[in-house]
């Protein structure tokens, strides 16, 4: 705990920041340039403006809220650190590299505090302590945000993977259905095509229903992908029915002049299933109650 009353801590830091912002900035940049600057990930000019902005906000924070990093006076700084951590996490910095962005302010700041309070050991001690507490809190904060960002990225990727691993559903002996959800780009369609064809082989299904209810738009690119899938399935000995064709999609298909060859298309999955059963020579009959 500081020897000076709370509202007086940071006075020296504040004064230093006001007086010698440029000096601190250059020394700070130099501290970082040794190992952790990652010139490959961030440009010198970008880093410099980030640091300058940070020093300004830090000064404001101290003037408004002392060295208590949790006070609302530090909101803006917290926001900036969040932003920096998140972007660094995405850019590929390590958590240490991100935290060191903060920690490397220590030396420039401490040298000046020592100079200012040379003859006052008590004041020097508490001011140094206040500065350390403050910068440590900030460093830890960046680490926490970094961690959370990484976790978010992983969670998002997992969701995307689940989306990609579109489940092929067996509706009946010989009939599988593939409900497509979301936009179909080339990469995704490739994966989807392969898993449908694999499922056809594994479940021995002569009929595959591709349901496009969840596909927002069907343009020539999407149509081409669908056509390729159907052609491949036919080459293998299975046939496809496309279901979930909404009236708007039917219009688009006609407008664009897309030729669906002789592929059967139905508005609903149930209608498609009905056709599939017919093709397999199957019939659903009602049980006679005894």
């Amino acid at each position, binding site marked *: 705990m500081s020897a000076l009353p709370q509202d007086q801590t940071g006075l020296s830091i504040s004064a230093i920041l006001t007086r010698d912002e440029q000096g601190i900035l250059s020394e700070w940049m130099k501290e970082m340039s040794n190992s952790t600057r990652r010139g490959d990930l961030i440009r010198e000019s970008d880093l410099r403006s980030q640091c300058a902005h940070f020093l300004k906000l830090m000064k404001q924070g101290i003037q408004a809220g002392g060295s208590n990093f949790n006070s609302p006076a530090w909101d803006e700084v917290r926001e900036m650190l969040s932003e920096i951590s998140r972007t660094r996490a995405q850019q590929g910095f390590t958590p240490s590299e991100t935290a060191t962005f903060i920690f490397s302010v220590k030396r420039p700041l401490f040298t000046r505090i020592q100079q200012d309070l040379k003859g006052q050991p008590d004041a020097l001690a508490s001011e140094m302590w206040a500065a350390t507490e403050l910068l440590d809190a900030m460093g830890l904060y960046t680490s926490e945000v970094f961690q959370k960002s990484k976790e978010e990225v992983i969670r998002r990727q997992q969701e995307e993977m689940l989306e990609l691993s579109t489940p092929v559903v067996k509706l009946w002996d010989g009939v599988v259905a593939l409900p497509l959800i979301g936009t179909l780009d080339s990469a995704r369609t490739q994966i989807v*095509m*392969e898993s449908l*064809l*694999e499922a*056809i*082989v594994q479940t*021995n*299904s*002569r009929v595959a229903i591709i349901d496009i209810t969840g596909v927002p738009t069907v343009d020539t690119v999407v149509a081409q992908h669908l056509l*390729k899938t159907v*052609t*491949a*399935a*036919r*080459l*293998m*000995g*299975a046939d496809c029915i496309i279901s979930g064709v909404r009236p708007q999609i039917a219009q688009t298909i006609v407008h664009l002049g897309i030729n669906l060859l002789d592929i059967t298309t139905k508005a609903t999955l149930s209608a498609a299933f009905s056709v599939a059963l017919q093709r397999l020579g199957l019939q659903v009959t009602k049980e006679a109650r005894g």
Partner: protein
Amino acid sequence: MEKIPILRMGDLLLVTIQVDMHDRLAMALQEDLTQMISDTEARGVLIDISSLDIVDSFIGRMLANIAAMSRVLDAETVVVGMRPSVAITLVELGLSLTGVRTALNVDAGMDLLKSAVRGSSNGYGSRLH
């Protein structure tokens, strides 16, 4: 030179094509098969390509030729067991294999042959039970 064996099952001929079939072997198969259809008066030909990890234009043309020639000799041909990666590649390649019937596997192929032959105008279909 080794030849691809052709098995006879009633009035069906069964061929299993192994991997790495070189061109001359493919040509020989085409000839042998045509000869055998004629000799045995076979009504159906089943070609199993489940071992093939690629089908290029040469093999594709061979399959199409076999289908066409056997039809002239009043026999139906079904190609079974095409792998997904092969199907995808053929579509990209633009090879359509018109005139070639396909089925997922040997069982499905047999079913297809039976119904195809049964529907033929010669009326010999009943022999295939």
